[in-house]
C-alpha cells in the first residue's frame, strides 16, 4: 500500500508481572484496512499486549509504534492515532447516548461541527439513530457495546484496539458488531482486537494465536488450517463415549475429541487410518453414521499444537 509505515508495528514486546512472563517477545504488524486478531484463552497475554499498544502499560523491553510514532518516545503523538476500548468501556449510565458521545468528543478535542457530523454517521452505521436521547444505562448489552465503539471512534483514530469486544454479547448482536467493524475498514482504519473464542478468529483477516504470552502461529485463518500436522476425521455417532474407548488406541490417532454429533479424531493420515477405524467400529459393533475427513478448525490446531508443546516440556 501507499502507507509508509504499518499502522501497528510491535517488535519483541515483553512484559512480566512479579516474575511471571505475561507477554514473551511478541512481534507482529497490522496494516491499514486490516482486522488483526489476538486470539487465545484467558491468561494468554492478550489484554497485556493491547495495554502496551495503547500506551497505558510500559513494556519491560521491546518497541511498538503506531502510524510511525514510537509509543515510548512520543506517547502523545501516538495516542492521537489510537483508540483503546477496554473490556469495561467507561460509559456514563446516567447520561444519554448523545451526551456520552459529546463527552468523549470533548476529551479528544473534536470540534463541534466535526463531532455532530461524525456522530450522525456513526449512529447511522450502528442502527442507533433513534436512540440519541436514551439513557446509556437503559440500553441492552449489545447496544452498550455499540455505543462504546461509537465513542471510541469519534476522533477518527487510525488504529482501534478492542479488548474482547464481543464477550457476553449474543450471536445476533455479535454479527451486527462485526458488520460495523468491517464498514470502518473502508476509511483505512486498522483494527486490532482480542478474543478468547477461537471461532471468532475466522472473522479476522489475520490472527496471532496466543498461548502463555507467545505467538503459536500468525497468519490468515485459512492458512492456519493448513498448518495442522495430520488430518481431522469426523465420525457421526449417537454413542460417542463408547466409540472413543474403541478408537483411542488405534495406531496413528493423536487426539480424540467428543462433539455432540460424535467424535473428532486427529490422525497422522486420513487415507491411511480410515480403513482401520472402520474395521474397529465394525468389530465393536457400535452404530455410526458417516466417517469422513473434515477441514480442521482453529481450535483443532490450537489443541494439537499446545499438547505437543507440553508433551515436549514434560515428556
Amino acid at each position: 500500500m501507499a502507507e509508509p509505515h504499518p499502522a501497528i508495528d510491535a517488535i519483541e514486546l515483553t512484559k512480566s508481572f512479579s516474575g511471571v512472563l505475561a507477554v514473551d517477545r511478541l512481534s507482529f504488524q497490522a496494516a491499514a484496512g486490516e482486522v488483526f486478531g489476538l486470539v487465545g484463552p484467558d491468561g494468554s497475554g492478550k489484554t497485556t499486549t493491547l495495554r502496551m499498544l495503547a500506551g497505558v502499560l510500559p513494556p519491560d523491553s521491546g518497541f511498538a509504534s503506531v502510524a510511525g510514532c514510537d509509543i515510548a518516545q512520543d506517547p502523545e503523538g501516538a495516542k492521537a492515532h489510537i483508540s483503546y476500548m477496554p473490556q469495561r468501556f467507561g460509559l456514563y449510565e446516567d447520561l444519554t447516548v448523545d451526551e456520552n458521545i459529546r463527552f468523549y468528543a470533548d476529551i479528544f478535542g473534536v470540534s463541534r461541527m466535526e463531532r455532530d457530523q461524525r456522530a450522525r454517521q456513526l449512529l447511522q452505521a450502528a442502527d442507533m439513530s433513534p436512540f440519541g436521547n436514551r439513557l446509556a444505562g437503559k440500553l441492552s448489552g449489545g447496544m452498550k457495546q455499540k455505543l462504546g465503539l461509537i465513542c471510541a471512534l469519534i476522533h477518527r483514530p487510525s488504529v482501534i484496539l478492542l479488548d474482547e469486544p464481543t464477550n457476553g454479547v449474543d450471536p445476533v448482536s455479535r454479527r451486527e458488531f462485526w458488520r460495523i467493524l468491517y464498514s470502518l475498514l473502508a476509511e483505512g482504519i486498522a483494527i486490532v482486537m482480542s478474543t478468547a473464542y477461537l471461532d471468532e478468529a475466522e472473522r479476522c483477516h489475520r490472527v496471532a494465536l496466543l498461548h502463555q504470552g507467545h505467538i503459536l502461529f500468525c497468519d490468515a485463518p485459512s492458512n492456519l488450517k493448513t498448518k495442522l500436522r495430520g488430518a481431522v476425521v469426523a465420525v457421526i455417532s449417537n454413542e460417542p463415549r463408547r466409540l472413543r474407548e474403541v478408537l483411542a488406541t488405534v495406531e496413528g490417532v493423536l487426539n480424540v475429541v467428543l462433539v455432540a454429533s460424535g467424535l473428532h479424531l486427529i490422525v497422522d493420515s486420513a487415507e491411511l487410518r480410515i480403513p482401520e477405524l472402520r474395521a474397529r467400529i465394525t468389530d465393536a459393533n457400535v452404530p455410526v453414521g458417516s466417517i469422513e475427513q473434515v477441514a480442521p478448525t482453529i481450535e483443532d490446531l490450537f489443541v494439537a499444537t499446545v499438547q505437543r508443546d507440553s508433551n515436549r516440556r514434560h515428556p
Partner: protein
Amino acid sequence: MNHEIPSVVVRDLVKQFGNFVAVDHISFEAHRGEIFGFLGPNGSGKSTTIRMLCGLLRPTAGHALVAGYDVARDRETVRQSIGYMSQKFSLYNDLTVIENIRFFAGMYEVSSAILQQRIGWVLNMAGLSGRELALTGTLAVGWKQRLALGCAVLHRPPILFLDEPTSGVDPISRRHFWDLIHQLADEGVTVFVTTHYMDEAEYCDRLVMIHQGKIVASGSPLELKQHAVEGELLLLECEPLGLALDLLHTDPDVLDAAVFGNALHLVVPQAMAAVARLRPCLTAHGITVTKFGPIPMSLEDVFVALTGKRVKSANQEV
C-alpha cells in the same frame, strides 16, 4: 430411555413481569443422563426459565417438575435436587480449596458419614489432590472451573444446571471439562446448559432455542444445522468485498449476508440456482470472484437466522 420418567418436565410455563411476558407458554422435557442445551439471546427468557426451574421464581402459569417435584409447591425439595454452577463460579477466592469444598458441603447438607469420601472425589476430579491448602484465587481458570463443578455436585444432585460454564476457558481445559460433564451424564445426571456461545452448544445432546419467551427450534445440534433453517449457506470470496456486500444486501434472493474475514456468508433459498444467477451479476459490476459455493450451516448461522429478524423489528417499534 423413553420409558423412564423425564428428569425435567415443563408444560405451558409462563412468567409475566407486569405487562411483559418474559416466558410465554414453553413446554419441553429433558431425560435422565441427557445434556440439554438451552440457547437464546440476552433477554430471551432463558434465565427466567432457569430461575423458575431452580425454585427461585414462582411461575405465573403452567407447571414444571424437576426430579419429580413441582417447582411452585416443593421449592425446598427442588433445591436439594439440583446443582448450580455459573460462569462466575461462585467460589470464594480468599478461601482455600478445602475450605470452599467444606463450605458448599455445609450448604448442601452433605452428611458427615460420606463427607470425606465426597471431598476426595472432588479433589481427584478437579486434579487438586495435594493442593487442598492453596488459595482458590491463585488457581488457573481451568482448575477453578473444575473445583466449582465439584462443589456444585457434592450432594450428588440428579440435575445439574450450568450457566455459560466454559466462557473464557482455554480449549484444552474446556475439553477436559466437557469430558467430566459427559461422565456425569453417563452416571445418569441430567445436565442443563444455558449459553449463547455456540461452541458450547455443540457439546449438548439436544438443544432448545428460545427467543422472546418462545421456543423457536429444538433438536440435536446436527438436526438444527440440517433442518431448522429454510435456505442454504454460500461462501463467497471476492474482491472488492464491500461492493459485493452492498450489492447482495439488496438482492431479493439473499436472505442474509455477513462478512467473515476475506469472505461473505450468504443465506439463499437454493444454493446452486443462486450461484448461477449471482456470479454473472457480480462479474458485471467488476467484482472478481475467486470462490463461490455451498458450505454447511453452523449453529451460529441457525441461531442468527431464527432470532435475528424479529429482534430488528422489535428495535424499530421503540
